[in-house]
């Protein structure tokens, strides 16, 4: 019996010829990441067991959740992290965007084991790596030992086939899948995306798919690397493929030829509806950004809808580029100017208002449509606010109209 990509990477990282689902293994970690919210709780446990990080080049610490800090408590926590970074001589302290975008742009190579103290670390799986999220104590143990214990997950294969209809994007595809599977439909599993739609997607769109596997409980969401991946990573790393006789717990087919734009409705990500069921719902905030949809491809779609027009008067549109690289490219292409002329507020790269701490906090009874990945009650501000999740195109069209709008007529 052959192995899936996930099994191959885990076998290699744990020095074994073969691993099977349910084995507990001890894997060497290639990239270990934590950020301004998860690092503080890792420092004390780290100091309890060791003095030095296992490899100061393999540790990446990113300030992205509240950057620059918005209140004294946040600054205090970041000050504590800076002390740790200095004392450990950690080479990579980044403040140039969302951690998952930074990892994809600069640190991850196909074939790696990537562990991050953030649930959306699964994003990097789109580059043909094993990537999963953990908490602070786990990352402290990795910073100390360079290793992690993992249970080898059963693999699910999702074949995404058909022709993408107008107005439908990677975000709609993954929202549809999350809606079908449910919030715990893939708990502890490895998801492998394949099919002509995935192969046709850009790296940016693939990152959107892998980003949201955690919203159905999955451990990782992997996509076989190809020429597009190698180009994106400047030919770092190597391509691994699943064996023909690899074993999958389940193979699911998703034909998306008739898919409509999808919207995830309050207050759970798996509460996914076709856009025609929610069209017309008035909004007060529209948000473009995050590790899900804050890349240049996303901004291009938004600019295409907004350019030369003004957004609705009663809407605040917030755009947070996912990284400095994205921001600079958007400036170069004139996107930032066009967005501002349309009435958008541009923030510095980072998580922006996604987690409700700054840069666009919702008041009670406000409604936000967002290109992010979570709509839990209270996530972006008041627990009496409502969050709808959609593609950047749907968010932009909705900002134009002041209500949830099918983007098809703008494209």
């Amino acid at each position, binding site marked *: 019996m052959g192995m899936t990509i996930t099994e191959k990477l885990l076998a290699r990282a744990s020095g074994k010829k073969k691993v099977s689902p349910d084995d507990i293994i001890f894997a060497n970690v290639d990239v270990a990441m934590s950020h301004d*919210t998860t690092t503080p709780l890792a420092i004390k446990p780290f100091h309890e067991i060791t003095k030095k990080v296992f490899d100061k080049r393999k540790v990446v610490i990113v300030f992205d959740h509240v950057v620059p800090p918005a209140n004294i408590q946040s600054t205090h*926590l970041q000050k504590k992290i800076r002390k740790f970074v200095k004392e450990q001589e950690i080479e990579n302290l980044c403040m140039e965007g969302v951690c998952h975008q930074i990892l994809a742009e600069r640190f991850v190579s196909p074939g790696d084991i990537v562990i991050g103290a953030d649930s959306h670390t699964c994003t990097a799986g789109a580059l043909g790596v094993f990537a999963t999220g953990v908490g602070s104590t786990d990352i402290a143990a990795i910073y100390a030992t360079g290793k992690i*214990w993992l249970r080898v997950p059963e693999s699910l294969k999702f074949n995404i086939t058909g022709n993408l209809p107008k107005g439908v994007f990677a975000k709609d595809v993954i929202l549809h899948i999350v809606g079908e599977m449910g919030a*715990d439909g893939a708990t502890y599993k490895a998801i492998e995306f394949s099919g002509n739609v995935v192969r046709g997607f850009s790296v940016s769109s693939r990152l959107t798919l892998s980003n949201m596997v955690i919203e159905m409980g999955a451990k990782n969401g992997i996509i076989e690397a190809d020429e597009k991946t190698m180009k994106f990573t400047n030919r770092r790393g190597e391509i691994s493929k699943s064996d023909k006789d690899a074993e999958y717990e389940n193979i699911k087919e998703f034909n998306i030829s008739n898919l409509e734009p999808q919207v995830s409705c309050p207050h759970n990500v798996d509460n996914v509806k076709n856009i025609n069921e929610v069209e017309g719902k008035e909004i007060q905030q529209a948000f473009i950004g995050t590790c899900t949809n804050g890349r240049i491809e996303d901004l291009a779609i938004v600019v295409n809808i907004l350019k030369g027009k003004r957004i609705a008067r009663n809407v605040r549109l917030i755009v947070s580029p996912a990284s400095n690289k994205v921001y600079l490219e958007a400036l170069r292409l004139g996107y930032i100017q066009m967005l501002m002329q349309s009435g958008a507020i541009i923030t510095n790269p980072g998580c922006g208002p996604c987690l409700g701490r700054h840069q666009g906090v919702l008041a009670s009874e406000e409604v936000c449509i967002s290109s992010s990945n*979570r709509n839990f009650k209270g996530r972006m501000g008041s627990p009496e606010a409502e969050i709808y999740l959609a593609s950047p195109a749907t968010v932009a069209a909705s900002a134009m109209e002041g209500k949830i709008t099918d983007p098809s007529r703008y494209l």
Partner: protein
Amino acid sequence: MRVWKFSDDINTDLITPGRYNLTTDKAQLAKIAFIEYRPEFAREVEEGDMIVAGKNFGCGSSRETAPLALKSAGIKTIIAKSFARILFRNAINIGLPVVICKEADRIEEGDQVEIDFEKGLIHNLTKKEDLKVTPLPAFLIEILESGGLINYLKRRSLRIR
């Protein structure tokens, strides 16, 4: 050993909302547990109480403040029909026992329960019935018995196996 009952899909934003996630201090974390979702929880929870939940407890973010706030508030064990994987790891890593019980629905708010970890049984003293627990892998029990991952590593001189 009072039971605090919760529904399916309790996410980490409900346990410790992002806007309150600004400290590593355990006493302060104890105060923010379910601060908006169930404000009476932090005020009334007593040392040794338990949480009983439906499926997918702790889905969402990797924030370890979620299990840490519950532990700091006095919660001794979390019983659920199933757990989201990051919270499951985080709870074990900080030495907070997690118990999977497919029949957790049979336990109600305010019930008095005790757990016999050796026999793998939940005794519901209020309903006078015993419920079976799904056993955890031996490796995870070893981490829990050490009091969490850090103590486990200390005990084994940093060797992870």
